């Protein structure tokens, strides 16, 4: 095998473990789950703390609620990162095709031979011109 193929084989072996597209989907799902669970537990823990009389219970529940809010924010960030990544890839592709189409049109227009020189339209009779100028 040549060097290129040896390098390719090494890289492909590592790739086989992760499988890029599936990995992106897993992170997106994990982010969504963290966001939902974090927000749900936080919303549950805080009202529960209001019903407690022991300050230690109240503190524990509020700490749990704040920690779960942090998990929800982190989950939202992970979810956005991977869903926006996919969206932006499609957006870039669309921009490319639009750009190519636009430039093709411009280039085609530039390469078209200039129109043959046509005689300029005859000047209107002086009387007409005067009438038009007067009517303005």
């Amino acid at each position, binding site marked *: *095998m*040549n*060097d*290129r*193929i040896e*390098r*390719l*084989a090494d*890289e*492909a*072996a590592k*790739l*086989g473990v*992760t*499988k*890029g*597209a*599936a990995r*992106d989907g897993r992170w997106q799902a994990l982010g969504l789950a963290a966001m939902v669970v974090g927000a749900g537990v936080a919303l549950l823990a805080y009202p529960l703390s209001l019903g407690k009389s022991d300050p230690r219970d109240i503190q524990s529940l509020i700490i749990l609620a704040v920690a779960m809010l942090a998990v929800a924010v982190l989950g939202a960030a992970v979810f956005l990162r991977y869903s926006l990544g996919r969206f932006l890839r499609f957006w870039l592709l669309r921009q*490319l095709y639009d*750009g*190519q189409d636009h*430039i*093709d049109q*411009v*280039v085609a227009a530039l390469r078209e031979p200039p129109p043959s020189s046509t005689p300029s339209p005859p000047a209107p009779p002086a009387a007409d011109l005067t009438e038009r100028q007067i009517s303005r």
Partner: protein
Amino acid sequence: MTAGNGATPPLGGPVAALELRGVHAAYAGIEVLSGVDLVVPVGAVVALLGANGAGKSTTVKVAAGLLRPTAGSVMVAGHDVTGAAAHDLARIGVCTIPEGRGIFPNLSVRENLWMAVPERGRLPAVEEAAFTRFPRLAERRTQLAGTLSGGEQQMLALCRALVVDPAVLLLDELSMGLAPIVVQQLYEIVAQVAREGISILVVEQFAQAVLGIADRAAIMVNGTVTQAGTPAEMQSALSDAYLGG
């Protein structure tokens, strides 16, 4: 001549650079590939020929990770990469030049090259190597890529793929919309690239253009590889494939 994949022993050793095994693929439930078997040996140029609509470009899309096969597997250097993302395959060295060139038309020639090189420190060396190989692009380095001629755009696409030093190159309809003399020049460059040890799969509708440089050829009809063998063996089979004889 073999029917099916033409899985003769790879030129460079027992492991093929790229191999498709029983690949099925579909667009919106409509099957386009039905059991494609194809081997690209290490350091070889393999021409995939066939009439319009035979499934050649879809085969490239599956090999490049742009389309997930519904069945079968894609092997790169002996490792199963079925379902791997296109950007991951490109990163490891499987580069695609798609139909329509896929360059950035509103960037200059140099900027198109920069897009392919993540490390800024390598840019001068990359530019020098690229412009030595393609002197015509050197003359147009500051010109917008969209305003180059078709052949120059295809050269830029090739150049951009080569600066990342790929192991496998997938070329989809290199000759599309180009004059025969330009196509001949491009295939001379492809042959030179193959001599450097890069394994190449060329999808081409115009068979004569590519058979001159290919080590092996395969013919696709209705989403499957019907014949494979040496270019000389494929010459006689071509009319049947294109005319349905």
